[in-house]
């Protein structure tokens, strides 16, 4: 049977992606004095994507 189970709070089992999915994309949005707007949060996703893309590029370059 293919159920993969990952239980918290073993922090290292929570991927950064799952964290971003919840901690940055969900939860109650309040208007703080400094608050990430929804647009900023999308930027986080984009930022993460760029980071991963650049890491992959670096790995490819290192492998040459």
């Amino acid at each position, binding site marked *: *049977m*293919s*159920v*993969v*189970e*990952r*239980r*918290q*709070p073993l*922090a290292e089992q*929570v991927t*950064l*992606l*799952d*964290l*971003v*999915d*919840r*901690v*940055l*994309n*969900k*939860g*109650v*949005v*309040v*208007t*703080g*004095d*400094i*608050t*990430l707007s929804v647009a*900023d*949060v999308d*930027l*986080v996703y984009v*930022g*993460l*994507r*760029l*980071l*991963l*893309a650049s890491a992959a590029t670096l790995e490819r370059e290192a492998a040459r």
Partner: protein
Amino acid sequence: MIDAAARTAWYVYGVAEDEAAIARLDGVELIRDGRLTAVVREVSLDEYDEAVLPERLNDRDWLERNARAHEDVLQSAAAVTTIVPLRFGAIYRSREQVGQMLDERSDEFLSTLERVRGHVELGVKVWADVQMLERALAAAEEPSAGGAGAAYLQRRRQEQERARELAVLCAQVAEDAHARLSGVASAAVANRPQPRELTGRSEPMLLNGAYLVRDGDDGLRREVERLATEHAARGLEYELTGPWPPHNFAGEPQ
């Protein structure tokens, strides 16, 4: 030293009702207003000022450290009481402003606390082995008859048809699984599946669901096991995460 004092602010993690339960949490402070208590930490504006935040968010190590810290505080609080998670990065320049926010949003916080009380959030992802799904579809097709030219055309048609069927099948799997899991949950939400370039897996994610279930209730876990058994031959893998604080159920009811 006035400058140094002005360089800190209050980062709010979440809002709870039972102040006594969270009074012993390490490394955080509490700000109370009426029936509500905010779980906060004093942070340096060198870390969280608007001017530096966008840059910080694109620093993977910083992001990971602080997102985990946010989650850790919420999990510690959730272990002892019901807490409504706030989204990452809610920062106030004074304790009074935190109290004012609690006051202004108190009806909403109280009704959310009521809704999630005694519940946890579980995450379920479904991954597809596309080759296995394609084989299952191909096995169901009629063998081609007629000459070579007709066979070629039929094969082309079948390939196009199969790609279309595959897309339909994937959408249906996600929809069916989500419907069955929703049936054993108090509330449910199907989030956008995480893209392949971020998961780093070759299999596409079909479902990225979150389910609010009673703490200690095994129904959803059992339903996931049933689905996984039924779908194993089609190359579908189920992944269960949690329990999480109710991040996905902290906003307006869906």
